[in-house]
């Protein structure tokens, strides 16, 4: 599942994938894979991304269960 919240939080901070990748110490392709939902990051990387973007883990990575 695509992580649009991460993408919009990154855009709100005016950061490119490359810039965010450098700030958290990963490759641009890794940020791209997370946003596309192709890769599930470790909690360590999630926290690093949250710190850079000023968001909580819930805001960026928590997936609400389908009420149905």
């Amino acid at each position, binding site marked *: 599942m695509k992580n649009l919240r991460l993408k919009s939080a990154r855009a709100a901070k005016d950061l*490119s994938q490359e810039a965010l990748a450098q700030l958290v110490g990963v*490759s641009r392709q890794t940020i791209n*894979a997370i946003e596309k939902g192709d890769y599930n*990051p470790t909690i360590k990387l999630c926290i690093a991304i949250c710190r850079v973007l000023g968001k909580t883990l819930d805001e960026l990575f928590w997936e609400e269960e389908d009420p149905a």
Partner: protein
Amino acid sequence: MKHNLWWLAGALSGITVVLIVYLIKRVTHGKNKDFDERQTAARGKAFQYAFITTALGELLYVCLEAGGIVFADSSIGPLLPVLLGAAVFAVTAVANDAYLSLRESAKSAFLFPLLFLALNLLIGIPKLIDGKVIVDGLLTFDGINLIIAALFLILFAAIVIHWFQGSRGAGGEDE
């Protein structure tokens, strides 16, 4: 005997060079990570594929040899599945953006395979012309440079294809 000593000296020189390069890398880069967590996982998967390829290749080679189908002498035959495994590792790593570490530039990704390809062709082609590569219908150890050249050609092709796919949008920014 003299031939064996030269072979041993060559092998020891190779191991020494690799050790020196590794130690220099350790000292200059310290414990800083080379690959991120996704790349490490992807490389682990690539290694798994390479290991299986090598194991199956060796099995096939032994079976063919037992069945009387011999296409290479014993100095190079068992090496072929190992080289095939290396190709599988490299191509899988390239396809998953896990070939280059975080510190390496894209330029080095293109440059090094080309350099090794050219060097091995430079050594291998004269041997082929001299008829040393295939003797009595068997591939000899003199063919190793051409095989390694083929390996780097595959790697270079994988890098170029992946780069073109990336520049056309796949894996690119903000899809």
